[in-house]
């Protein structure tokens, strides 16, 4: 039996070198004031979010004229892309077998980093709410607590699941695009906005226009029931754009 501790693992990697410390110090000591440009982008994002909420049932139509989601996210400080808004396209969801989730595709953009897709996910039933599982402290120190006593991290301060759901059921979900991807989740009152970046893409297919099958696993946390559904995303021909600046 091999015993592995956190300290033992840490000793597998070199400690921070003086050179690294100095390099980080140089960056930290020269941090610029935050650019107003970023603040403006954040404001634009808020406006876009509000617009999306107002027109939730017609998001596909909205997507054709409203490209702020990709622009705000990819062009923002984290991703730092030069976004070519003319290359953002409107994907369509040609199949969604989920009875539990409404899923609306918004925007698609192909960059050197991969294929970026934004979508909005909301529960189909009024009596239900959705969370991404990582918003509930299901691991670590709260692992053994009853669900309603666990904390949710969805606002400025944590609330218990029981306080938040107020008798409604909670669904959690995972979207699997079938390849390596990373994702960002942005919450609003109606559900979750997701930005998926698919890292392994078929370049010829994207250039020609293609369909991407995806899987969705939804779990009702109150009953333990699970729904396995499939999506089909249809993309018009796209042109690959540069990635980060």
């Amino acid at each position, binding site marked *: 039996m091999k015993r592995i501790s956190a300290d033992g693992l840490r000793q597998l*990697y070199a400690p921070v070198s003086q050179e690294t410390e100095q390099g980080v110090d140089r*960056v930290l000591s020269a941090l610029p004031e935050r650019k107003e440009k970023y603040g403006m982008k954040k404001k634009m994002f808020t406006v876009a979010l509000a617009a999306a909420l107002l027109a939730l049932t017609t998001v596909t139509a909205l997507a054709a004229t409203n490209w702020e989601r990709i622009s705000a996210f990819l062009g923002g400080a984290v991703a730092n892309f030069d976004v070519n808004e003319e290359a953002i396209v409107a994907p369509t969801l040609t199949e969604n077998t989920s009875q539990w989730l409404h899923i609306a595709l918004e925007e698609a953009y192909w960059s050197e980093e991969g294929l970026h897709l934004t979508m909005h996910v909301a529960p189909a039933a009024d009596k239900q709410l959705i969370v991404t599982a990582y918003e509930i402290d299901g691991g670590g120190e709260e692992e053994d607590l009853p669900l309603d006593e666990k904390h949710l991290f969805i606002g400025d301060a944590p609330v218990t699941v029981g306080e938040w759901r107020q008798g409604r059921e909670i669904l959690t*979900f995972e979207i699997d695009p079938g390849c390596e991807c990373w994702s960002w989740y942005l919450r609003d009152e109606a559900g979750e906005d997701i930005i998926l970046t698919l890292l392994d893409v078929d370049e010829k297919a994207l250039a020609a226009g293609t369909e991407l099958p995806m899987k969705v696993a939804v779990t009702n946390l109150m009953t333990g029931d699970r729904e396995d559904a499939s999506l089909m995303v249809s993309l018009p021909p796209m042109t690959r754009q540069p990635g980060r600046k």
Partner: protein
Amino acid sequence: MDKTTFEQLYRELLPGFYRLAQGMLRNAADAQDAVQQAALKAWQAANGIKLGGERAYMTRIVINECRNIQRHRMRVIPVEEFREEPYIPKDRELRRAIDGLPERLRLPLLLKYMEGYSEKEAAAALGITLPALKGRLLRARRQLAKELKEEVEWI
């Protein structure tokens, strides 16, 4: 978050970020680039950091920066190459076994067991759901035990 608080926090978290970057990039020089670039990007994004979620958010940026470096350099570093690193860990067999795990299994393992992240925090840092994280941790532990040819007790 003001600049002084940010600087203090980033310095405090730097050792863990640097270890994580080495775990991803298997190369100290690349890891150094990643933590430096991530410092600037994390500051630029600091307005979006949720109270209590600072470490997960910054970790996410470090991971993205590592991935950016991986993609831009367009090379896959073979496990053997880490032997050329000037730092020789005491337990080389364990390091080799961990480096041999695919990244999707290696990162959850390092975040939880090396850096002490809660599963929720590790999932947030990786941008995956908690069930996905738990599944990856399980597979990582199994695969590591198989590589080491003995059972592992995590303490």
